[in-house]
């Protein structure tokens, strides 16, 4: 088993600077054929810059890239693809209005004279989908597929070019447990067929599971490369950040108070049925389930963004009819949505304007917004949330994901809700901001609020929640107290194997 490792990719002495910031400094990366090489690091560590260089979007200031032993000079993205580099990004690179088969062959459709050779296009799609064991009809319009199915098509598209190196950038952030399994089996198959897989992720548990070796980057520098077998998540975090893992999730011991939210038998056709749950003061309640189990839909329905067909929602004992987000806010509910970019931030508006948006009428006196008052309100919040850099006039799209999430969270804190619903509050957020966000959530609970938290990261749920409700295919199948909660237990319920 100790055959000489074939080096598929070697990047040496890579340095890259942008005006004002040194993104990469003397970074090394060596990836073997047939291995899954994970890259971890905080935001700003340089992972994405390194990958952009590999993909041909940037040229390094210094350093060399060798693919299969051959030196590579300046190259364009197209040349990178031709040379066997496949990139799978978080944002899917697919065309919703074309079919699966057309998407897979996009940009290089087999022709017959002037026309598209549809027989060949369909065959090509069938072949590569078959290799991935993906049960998808190539003639389907891509936009009609689910997110995880679309991701499989994306992988198929990359695989159809027969790459020797494939890079996955945060591939599981939109996937639930079951789809992640499918993805991992695909990656495993890639590994066994000799492809060099680079796997970038914030989810250290996944790295432990799927990775063979891991490289840690910090502040643009290469810190360490180790076999995964000889490393723990704790160790990785310490290398990435200089902090221990258990500092990330503050364990709170609060006495729950009165019931803040009581949801009785709510249903929405095609999404969820007969869901009953409750949240008390000073309590953090988790909502677990696979992707597609209806968690986000339940959250949106409670807040009022989507309607319910049946059932009732009570806030502090009073039945409320939340027909839109405004009603939800007046009822004392707040929702931090799952899709930060699409539903969370107004990118062009400043931090200040984003912060005050839900309560702007309250801040205005009579009709007018007085700038000084607004700024004062915002500044104290910015300090408390540790938004970095604390420039409230800067447009929000100039900030990192973690900071943006803090603003989204903060704007609802301003609204002083009784119930805070969080949908994947730390997704795509770096470790430092993650800890900050959990601290804020904890404070909110301590001050008497109730929290309903959706997360696909089970360790997070288990560490933070007092109780966990589990949804399976739109039905509430379990309620687990913290003392009894285990990852396997939650997963079992989430996949429908409810204990007798």
């Amino acid at each position, binding site marked *: 088993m100790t055959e000489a490792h074939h080096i598929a990719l070697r990047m040496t002495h890579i340095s890259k600077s942008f005006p004002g910031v040194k993104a990469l400094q003397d970074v090394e990366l060596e990836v073997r054929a047939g291995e899954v090489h994970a890259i971890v690091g905080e*935001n*700003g560590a340089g*992972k*994405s810059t390194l*990958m*952009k260089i590999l*993909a041909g*979007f*940037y040229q390094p200031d210094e350093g060399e890239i060798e693919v299969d032993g051959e030196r590579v000079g300046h190259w364009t*993205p*197209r040349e990178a*693809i031709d040379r066997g580099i496949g*990139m799978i*990004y*978080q*944002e*899917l*690179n*697919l*065309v*919703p*209005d*074309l079919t699966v088969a*057309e998407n897979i062959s*996009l*940009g*290089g*459709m087999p*022709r017959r004279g*002037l*026309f*598209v050779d549809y027989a060949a296009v369909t065959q090509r799609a069938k072949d590569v989908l078959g290799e991935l064991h993906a049960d998808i009809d190539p003639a389907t319009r891509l936009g009609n597929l689910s997110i995880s199915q679309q991701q499989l098509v994306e992988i198929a598209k990359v695989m159809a070019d027969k790459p020797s190196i494939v890079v996955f*950038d*945060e591939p599981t952030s939109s996937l639930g447990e079951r789809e992640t399994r499918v993805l991992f089996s695909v990656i495993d198959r890639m590994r066994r067929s000799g492809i060099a897989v680079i796997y970038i992720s914030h989810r250290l548990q996944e790295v432990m599971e799927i990775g063979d070796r891991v490289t840690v980057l910090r502040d643009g520098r290469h810190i360490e490369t180790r076999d995964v077998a000889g490393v723990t998540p704790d160790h990785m975090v310490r290398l990435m950040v200089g902090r221990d893992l258990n500092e990330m999730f503050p364990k709170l011991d609060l006495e729950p108070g009165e019931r803040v939210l009581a949801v009785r038998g709510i249903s929405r056709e095609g999404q969820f049925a007969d869901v009953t749950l409750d949240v008390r003061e000073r309590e953090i309640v988790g909502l677990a389930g696979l992707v597609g189990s209806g968690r986000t839909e339940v959250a949106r329905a409670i807040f009022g963004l989507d309607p319910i067909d049946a059932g009732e929602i009570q806030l502090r004992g009073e039945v409320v009819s939340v027909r839109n987000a405004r009603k939800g806010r007046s009822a004392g509910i707040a929702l931090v949505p799952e899709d930060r970019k*699409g539903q969370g931030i107004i990118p062009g508006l400043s931090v200040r304007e984003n912060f005050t948006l839900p309560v702007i009428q309250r801040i205005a006196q009579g009709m007018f917004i007085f700038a000084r008052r607004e700024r004062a309100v915002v500044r104290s919040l910015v300090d408390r949330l540790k938004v970095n850099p604390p420039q409230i006039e800067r447009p929000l799209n*100039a*900030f*990192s*994901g973690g*900071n943006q999430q803090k603003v989204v969270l903060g704007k609802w804190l301003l609204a002083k809700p009784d119930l805070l619903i969080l949908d994947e509050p730390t997704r*795509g957020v*770096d470790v430092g901001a993650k800890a900050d966000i959990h601290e804020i959530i904890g404070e909110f609970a301590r001050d008497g609020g109730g929290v309903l938290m959706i997360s696909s990261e089970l360790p997070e749920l288990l560490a933070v929640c007092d109780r966990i409700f589990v949804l399976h295919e739109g039905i509430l199948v379990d309620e687990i107290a913290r003392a009894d909660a285990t990852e396997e237990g939650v997963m079992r319920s989430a996949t429908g194997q409810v204990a007798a």
Partner: protein
Amino acid sequence: MRRLDLRATGRTAVRYRLLVLLVIVAIFGSITIVDFFSVDTLQSVLNRATVVGFLALGLTPVLIAGQIDLSIGSILSMAGITTIALQPVIGNVPAALAGLGVGVLIGAVNAAIVVVFKISSLVATLATLLIFASLALLLTDSQPVSSTDPIFGIPLTGDLLAVFTPRSALFVAAAILMFVWLRFTPSGRNLYAVGSNAAAAKSAGIRSNAYIVATFLISGLFAGAAGVLQSLSTATGSPVAGAVMLIPAITAVVIGGTRLEGGRGSSLATLGGVVALGALTMMFEFNGVPAYTQAIYTGVLLIVLITLDRLVSGDGRPTSRTLRRARVESPTPRGIQEEA
């Protein structure tokens, strides 16, 4: 339960809206007019619809690519006056070609503003609409130009295979060719990619900019063709001929079902929309309905169609591309999460 049925029938009605509309027009037409269902009528409808038809046809790939071209009316006017004005100078056929050339030229100007200056097509073609409408007025001193050879254009509206005229045959042929291009060639399929997800198109190596340039050139060419045909048939080059045609052209495209958001569309659908609109107009005219009342009916039709479409296809929750046009490429890569 009942709600579901309504929805289903509504949805079918909207999908086949073209057919529904044609049937309605046919019924009304045959009731109010003798001999409505005749080959003559069809020939007339097709013939009259040709000019707007070419505009709508040229607009279709532009919309598919996620852009818009509001200047087609001005292009029509410019091409028309060019053709007529040059007839005595370089001869009939070369003058017609020059008219086409002017269309392509203005299309190129549009393309340059959108791709080189990176200005959105809405603003860009709004500006060129103004610029070339003014230029047309300037060049003709706000007077229509009369042709020195009015006989040349007459055969365009003559008989061809009973149901066509030479110019309507050109139109239908163009629609079919465009359909083949869009549906069966790689470049046609790529066009949908450009309008549906410009970033994905770029990652696949498709040069979106080239495609966007091409659609503006096509739009210019077809608008030029419309202008040439119209001016030859009327033996007049009018500097304002095109101004009133923008709305009917867009109406025809919308009736046909092409969306303004990009990524979807079909030239055959546009053809159908043009014919439907033409039939409607013809029916109005036979019944002596004045132009402004026609405008009311057409406007209401447009609104009703689009409302039905919206109601039936859900609450119109927009995708993130609804309000943006396909972006002209820039060298910054997207995809890997931007981390500060």
